[in-house]
């Protein structure tokens, strides 16, 4: 069961330091950007430490009793102004590209509505509705610790999971009915605040089948930590079958 949890489920692990495995192009992009930034960061850190060390070593009172009297150096000042700007531009370009790609809405095939409540999520699949008030909607509550089956994740498992098709463009509309919540799943690279009166839209393209765990990420009251999110991505046929079964219920 431990193996199952660690290899098949996309949830946080004890003492985890890195990212969870990505399942969407957006999350892949986020991880890539992070790694690129870490390279630049490490380079700058090493360079600054080197300069600092050298300065302290060579230019202290013992080695240089008579201080230099230089106050200006046009060339060095241009260099230390222009170089950081270039580095910032180098960081900004891929960062903006990623930012705008997360906003991109590519011709969606499924719309999922996630409505935050104190303290559970309500999911609506209204593409198949035949009237305004009847439709495919359900509540998703956390499974209490006493009710957990072996292998289920504590504080992360829910009674009704969100089922979504893989390799399909999905629109998620996120809103709240009472206070602020936030619908977040690390593996899918999604974190979007649920705000009453607003319908926040994010797009999803899940690349592989799996079970993805997330949690409410905006402080919303006493049970804020007990309203997790679970997305199960399945092949398109299975998704259609699931929707058909749900509608027939």
């Amino acid at each position: 069961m431990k193996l199952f949890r660690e290899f098949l489920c996309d949830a946080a692990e004890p003492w985890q330091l890195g990212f969870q495995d990505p399942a969407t192009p957006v999350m892949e992009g986020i991880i890539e950007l992070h790694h690129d930034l870490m390279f630049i960061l490490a380079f700058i850190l090493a360079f600054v430490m080197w300069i600092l060390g050298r300065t302290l070593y060579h230019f202290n009172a013992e080695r240089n009793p008579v201080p230099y009297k230089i106050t200006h150096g046009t060339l060095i000042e241009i260099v230390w102004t222009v170089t950081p700007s270039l580095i910032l531009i180098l960081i900004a370009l891929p960062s903006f590209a990623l930012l705008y790609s997360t906003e991109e809405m590519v011709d969606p095939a499924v719309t999922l509505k996630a409505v935050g409540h104190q303290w559970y999520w309500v999911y609506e699949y209204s593409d198949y509705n035949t009237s305004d008030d009847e439709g495919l909607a359900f509540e998703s509550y956390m499974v209490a610790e006493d009710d957990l089956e072996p292998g289920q994740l504590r504080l992360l498992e829910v009674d009704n999971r969100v089922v979504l098709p893989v390799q399909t463009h999905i629109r998620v509309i996120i809103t709240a009915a009472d206070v602020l919540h936030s619908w977040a799943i690390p593996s899918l690279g999604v974190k979007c605040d649920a705000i009453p009166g607003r319908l926040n839209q994010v797009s999803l393209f899940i690349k592989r089948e799996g079970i993805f765990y997330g949690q409410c990420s905006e402080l919303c009251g006493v049970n804020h930590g007990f309203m997790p999110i679970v997305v199960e991505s399945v092949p398109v046929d299975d998704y259609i079958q699931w929707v058909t079964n749900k509608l027939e219920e």
Partner: protein
Amino acid sequence: MVLEWIFGKAVHCEEEAVAEPVEEEAVEEAEAQEEEAEEEEPAVEVKLGTTPYDPRFTTTNQARHCYTRYNEFHKCAAEKGEDAEDCKFFQKAYRSMCPSIWLEKWNEERDAGTFAGRY
């Protein structure tokens, strides 16, 4: 392709390949019947499809998208009748975009005559 996927299509393709070419017409008829039977099987036929991207609403906040589609439907319904084929698109669109609690509230307001929209 994937969007128009109805179950059983793959099965049909295989059957087609196996069928003898001499009885083409008979096979086609049988297939047509089979298709009908299979389509009737589930009480509801689920087809993937939702409100398309609308360049009028490019922001993250799609509240206006939902509200506009709701009003567009009621405008259409007022002009062409509630069940007009032309209005179906707007109806599907607002149902996909709007949370049911919003629709409930607006429908109540419409019934009470206090809805802010024109139609």
